[in-house]
């Protein structure tokens, strides 16, 4: 399997229909879901990530690969759950209150999905209370916040404060990003991490969870 397999090729070329079909065929042939993930899907997304980092792929190719991966995962998820396998890490993401910009947030969300995370996208103009409610309800390991306006950056701190007040802050890693946000600002407001771009955000989440 792995490189050269139909599923691997379908994901790298961003073909969701082929990825779905290849997964179905592999399952019918008796290949274990976890083997498909470890031997085809993860290597495929690693290759896609490498191509993106090398500026061989643009975001569309990256997102199409993520969509293909998701298409394959739709078949695998119920099987993994039924067999008691560990489910993917869950991330809650949103643009903070008062801010309607969502392109950057959407790219990060898509890249996280492509990286194998389960992403719950709360959208834009998300209040601290809504972030808190999502953490209580969905029990994510990570919260990502985005802001594109200088005047909405303070909402990041308000959200972190709200997580503290609700007693949830220690349950999640908090990442922040967006054009006016800096590493220094992230430290000042008590975030766990900051990334200046989308691909960095995926690596950051992986590193933070590995260190946890």
């Amino acid at each position, binding site marked *: 399997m792995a490189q050269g397999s139909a599923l691997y090729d379908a994901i790298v070329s961003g073909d969701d229909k082929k990825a779905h079909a290849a997964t179905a065929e592999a399952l019918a042939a008796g290949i274990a879901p976890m083997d498909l993930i470890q031997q085809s899907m993860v290597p495929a997304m690693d290759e896609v990530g490498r191509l993106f980092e090398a500026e061989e792929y643009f*975001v*569309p*190719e990256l997102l*199409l690969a993520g969509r293909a991966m998701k298409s394959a995962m739709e078949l695998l998820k119920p099987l993994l759950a039924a067999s008691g396998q560990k489910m993917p890490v869950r991330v809650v993401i949103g643009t903070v209150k008062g801010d309607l910009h969502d392109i950057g947030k959407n790219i990060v969300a898509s890249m996280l999905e492509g990286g194998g995370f389960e992403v719950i996208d709360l959208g834009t103009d998300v209040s601290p209370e809504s972030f808190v409610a999502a953490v209580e309800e969905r029990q994510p390991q990570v919260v990502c916040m985005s802001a594109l306006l200088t*005047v909405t950056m303070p909402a990041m701190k308000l959200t972190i404060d709200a997580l503290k007040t609700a007693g949830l802050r220690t349950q999640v890693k908090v990442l922040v990003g967006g054009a006016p946000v800096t590493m220094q600002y992230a430290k000042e407001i008590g975030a766990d991490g900051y990334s200046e771009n989308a691909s960095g955000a995926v690596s950051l989440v992986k590193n933070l969870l590995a260190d946890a």
Partner: protein
Amino acid sequence: MIIAETAQKFTALAIPGQDQLLFGVCPHPLTCGLGLTIGAGTVFPEVNFTLPPISIGDDTWNEVKAHYEEMAKQILRRAVALAAPGIVLEFELLPAMTERPEWGAEITAILKRHLVAAHEKHHLPCALRVTPTDIRDQLKPPLLRTGEPWQHLRRSLELCAEAGADILSIESVGGKEVHDRALMYGDFPGIVFALGVLAPRDMAWLWGQIVSVCLAHPGVVAGGDSACGFANTAMQLAHQKMLPEVLASVVRAMSAVRSLAAFEQGALGPSKDCAYEGPVMKAITGLPISMEGKSASCAHFSPVGNIAAAMCDLWSNESVQNVRLLSGNAPEAFTELLAYDCRLMNAAASRGGALDLRDWMTASDEWLSPQAAVLSPAATLRIANAIVHEESPYRQTIAAGRAALDLLKEGLAEEKLRLSRKELQWLQRIESALGELPADEASLMAALEEQYGSLYDKPSYGL
């Protein structure tokens, strides 16, 4: 001042030749504000400014107002010190100031008071452009013609007009809910659907509303729009190597059609500074435009820093925070940059050298980026001509895309433009996609219904 009461269709170019398409002049200059005439031979700075990091709320409102007082005072002081021949201040409301329209109106009144004082004391010709935030995309899918966000936006336009705005503008978002998705996936039919079907429909409706507000407030001009949420998004993502530059370039050309709809409804210019598609609109309508480039580096990167000035009537810095620099606060420092940029253009014009300067500014950027290649005076006229020779916004959008594609291919063939292998692949992909688009918008809409139908509210587009 003349404001059209019915929509007009532009079927020919107001500026048909390259020699008439240059900075500072246009066939239909606009007189507005306090003794300011735009497009009659002089380029003026348009200064745009915003707050540093601060929460906007009842508890901080006095601090917010103090920032605007300080920025207006310092900008106008610097403009007077540099003998600027005139100035436009642009106040872009922040979302909270549009959601609470009284706040936006209060800042508008503050800024207008400073402009009136500068005009009375220093005889400075000036005007205030006010740009409420298009907050109609709060719901998913966005409700564009009904609901609380639209009511707040409409009220904001009215209150700002009453409070002293001379020019009303907006960066509207109709169609963006589909364009964002299509752009991210590089889905060309989706991009064309958003830019050529949805966006023009919303623009026509929204600008009908804005023009009606202006008609009810004598002296207030309906300025223009910007494809900021569409083409500037593509431009910034291309800069970050997330999207192909050739795609951003074609999107820019196609975006001119939706921005033109403001003028079809009676806007008189100047179009918004971040509308890099402005020269196409100027060529078609003969109305003045605002542009931004190298002196907007405080706000964002641009691959068109010089060429963007070639045909401008106002020259802007896009946006700068009120933070302290060595020479003073950033807004007044950028006022100085703009003032000197304008001095050079106006000095060139007064000595008969405007065309030379325009061509130097064009040549300095034209073939270094596909996005600059579609912004030269010659390219502008090609795209503008393609647009006016088609009937519907959908067909116009495709025609503008084809014109941009042809310009890029010609640049390649003549070895003026150089593209990487993957950019060339995307150029080919765009060409194929353009060739496969259906002849009418209804067929395209039907073909894309499953993919995008849930993202937009059909009644918001009169569908």
